[in-house]
């Protein structure tokens, strides 16, 4: 233990099993007031499970929890809140149709005879947000605010409940560089106020930036607890993965040839007919990866939808190898040679109750190989699936297994395999590695580069700097529906971040 203060929270020997799966295996963990203690590990290492135990969402099979040195029984979020624990979940726990203030006070509402006192709620929200620099509009609806603001609401929720111990579960996954910096500032203020902060992440860099101490979990076990001083990305990576890893793959550059995707002056509206893409023009050439970088919600979704035929643009052109497909639907886009790795594999990319053979046919089910005269060629589908599954190293099931039964990484491999198998001219990859662990990310990245080198045009849309810089031959930054800059992959993170946030951040503000 490095901190001089005594821990206000201790977890001792926590074990949690799901059936035969041991998610946490006798894990010890503690955090002191005024300290940021990072919990580091790959997806599936058991970080979130441990925190769910702490927050009373799961009941541990073994072990005990001490707050201020006294053992406490935490069997529900209520008791966790009472013990002074606040949690900012990875998937925000906010009610979309309610306002910021309503979300913050939910469960502990200021009220008179049951009638909500929204005025008091607003005042309290203002007070807290002023104190910690967490700017929010108390009357905005959650569905109308940005992801960053949602996270601020989550933090305010915890502070409103007087949390002394704040758990942040992968807080930076959805944030821009600018927002990450803001978050760091907030955490520092909280620290000064004497809060104890648990910071969960699988990103080595930011852990080193934020934490005072770092505990590494691997396969449900605690493998090490180290002070920040002396820790390096390399040393941490070794602890996380259990072996040495190459952190930045040496990338060969692509050799762009003729343009395959040409988008000109595209305007796209969203469901509410608000314009989300305002005059985007871009070109992707054969053998090239063009990345669209930007903060979530700046029109990426609408842009991708318009290019892939899922949404009709208000105006503008989309040409695939000279063929106009704008507004003609998915089938026309597919026939023209577009494939689309969807942003959300559960929402779009896969039909989870379908078998893998059926899922692998989704893009091409109308082709003569897959179906003839209205009949599905089931034997062919199965045989084809077998081939693809082994080619893409999908583990955990055969052609007849249900997609739902696979792990996230393998599900994504299935989606990637299907799109690549359709032999497209243009591959649109929208957040292709979201929520995947290191191994799966390596695979997907490698495969995208391989396809580029085969001469496909690849449009990558990503929120991750590292991904963008690791893969792209050119980087286009999208901001409020417009392309605001083009960069080469060796652009600095600062510069990129500035462009992504509308260029309003001056360098001096970038502390850390």
């Amino acid at each position: 233990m490095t901190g001089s203060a005594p821990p206000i929270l201790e977890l001792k020997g926590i074990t949690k099993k799901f059936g035969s799966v041991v998610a946490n295996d006798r894990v010890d963990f503690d955090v002191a007031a005024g300290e940021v203690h990072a919990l580091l590990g790959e997806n599936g290492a058991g970080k979130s499970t441990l925190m769910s135990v702490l927050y009373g969402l799961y009941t541990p099979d073994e072990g005990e929890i001490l707050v201020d040195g006294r053992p406490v029984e935490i069997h529900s979020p209520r008791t966790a809140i009472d013990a002074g624990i606040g949690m900012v979940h990875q998937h925000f726990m906010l009610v979309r149709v309610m306002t910021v203030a309503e979300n913050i006070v939910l469960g502990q509402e200021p009220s008179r005879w049951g009638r909500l006192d929204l005025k008091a709620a607003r005042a309290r929200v203002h007070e807290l947000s002023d104190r910690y620099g967490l700017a929010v509009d108390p009357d905005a609806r959650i569905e109308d605010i940005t992801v960053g603001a949602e996270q601020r609401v989550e933090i305010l929720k915890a502070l409103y409940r007087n949390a002394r111990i704040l758990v942040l579960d992968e807080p930076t996954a959805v944030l821009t560089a600018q927002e990450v910096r803001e978050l760091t500032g907030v955490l520092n203020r909280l620290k000064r106020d004497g809060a104890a902060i648990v910071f969960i992440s699988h990103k080595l860099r930011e852990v080193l930036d934020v934490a005072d101490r770092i505990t590494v979990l691997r396969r449900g076990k605690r493998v090490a607890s180290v002070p920040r001083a002396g820790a390096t990305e390399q040393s941490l990576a070794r602890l996380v993965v259990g072996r040495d890893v190459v952190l930045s793959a040496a990338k060969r550059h692509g050799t762009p040839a003729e343009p395959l995707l040409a988008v000109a002056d595209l305007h796209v509206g969203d469901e509410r007919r608000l314009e989300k893409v305002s005059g985007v023009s871009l070109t992707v050439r054969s053998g090239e990866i063009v990345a669209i970088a930007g903060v979530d919600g700046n029109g990426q979704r609408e842009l991708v939808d318009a290019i892939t035929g899922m949404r009709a643009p208000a105006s503008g052109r989309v040409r695939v190898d000279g063929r106009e497909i704008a507004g003609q639907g998915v089938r026309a886009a597919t026939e023209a040679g577009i494939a689309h790795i969807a942003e959300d594999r559960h929402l779009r990319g896969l039909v989870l109750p379908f078998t893998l053979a059926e899922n692998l046919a989704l893009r091409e089910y109308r082709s003569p190989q897959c179906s003839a005269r209205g009949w599905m060629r089931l034997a062919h589908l199965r045989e084809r699936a077998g081939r693809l599954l082994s080619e893409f190293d999908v583990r955990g099931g055969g052609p007849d297994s249900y997609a739902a039964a696979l792990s996230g990484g393998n599900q994504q491999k299935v989606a990637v395999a299907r799109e690549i198998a359709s032999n497209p001219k243009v591959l649109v990859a929208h957040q292709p590695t979201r929520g995947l662990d290191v191994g799966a990310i390596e695979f997907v990245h490698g495969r995208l580069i391989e396809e580029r080198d085969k001469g496909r045009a690849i449009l990558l849309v990503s929120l991750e700097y590292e991904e963008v810089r690791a893969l792209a031959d050119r980087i286009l930054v999208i901001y409020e529906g417009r392309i605001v800059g083009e960069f080469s992959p060796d652009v600095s993170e600062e510069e990129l971040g500035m462009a992504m946030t509308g260029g309003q951040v001056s360098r001096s503000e970038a502390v850390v």
Partner: protein
Amino acid sequence: MSVGSLTVAPPRTASPRSCGIAGVVLGALAWVITLPPIELRGMLASIVLAAIAAALGVVAVRGGQRKLGVETIIVALLAVAGAAASAKSSLATVESVFTWSALAAATLRYATPLLFGALGGVVSESGGVINVGLEGMMLMGCFWGVYGADLLGWWGWGLLVAMLAGGLLALVHGVLSIHLRANQIVSGMGVNFLALGITGYFLEYHYGPNGTPLNISQVPNVRLPLIQHVGFFGAAIGDANLLTWVGLALVPALTFFLFRMKWGLRLRSVGEKPRAADTVGLPVLRIRYTAVVVSGMLAALGGAYLSVGFVGSFSNDMTNGRGFISLAAMIFGKWRPWGALWACLLFGFGNAMSDRVSSVNPTLGTLFEALPYVLTLVAVAGLVGRSRPPESDGIPYERE
């Protein structure tokens, strides 16, 4: 967030939307002027008005408001047909059908049981539990209301027993769909069958072939002495059943509860995102149970209105599908109390109209029996469109 908030189609002199709405109003007017109290006998004015309405509809279609525009044109056509029918019928006939005050009174009577059911649906589904069992819960209210009023001698007890029975059946639905995480639609259907069996059996068991007694204490009508003799209002609401007033009062009350009170906030949070509610320490399952049971009680009150309130007896399966109509009204009303009220009133109006029209022409009248259903179908298709239920409606909550 300030991302491009300009509309895709820039507004011209008059927006297609307002054209469409104006068209609907004009279209309706084309028919209304042939009815009491105006009773314009010629067709000309109606045709002119309808033509303008249709033209506005075309403008709306061209301006991109396709659905609204088509709706406008349909309204215009219907209005011409209605005006023609009024013009061809004798004045006496028109007046006998469109006695507005009597129509209003009948509309309220038809709407009352539906309203209770629909409000029950709103409560249950706000909390995230789909309630297809409204029909069965209503039926329970019908029978046990009569049973309670008969056994304990006062309609008030009858209502209480009805609510207990409805709540009990709802509890079964609750256990299945909340605790055992059943498919809620299926569970609701099962509950309906069960109610049919239970009420049928106990009707036989307690009352045998003679049926329920004829002198049970009934929920009284509220006579409003001040306005009872004031023309339209006197006839429309001067002598309405107590439960009708209760139902109407429940609409603002429930709205206030859902959107202005902390319990309403909690209930809706449980229906929208139970996990969020759970993580701030709210007892999700307990809130859901309460919502379902209350919904059963409300539906049972609707049933009790039919038996203890309106006719004073119980006959087998006397809800006659009203629970399903309430369900439709609730969806139609977009899961909100006021919306549900308008839907129920529309449905009640259709029923009241069909009664009156069918007394004018019995052969064709059979077709007019379908009027409330056609009206609802047209309204659901045209005016409402896609509506959004609570986000977690129908999804069982589980923490682990």
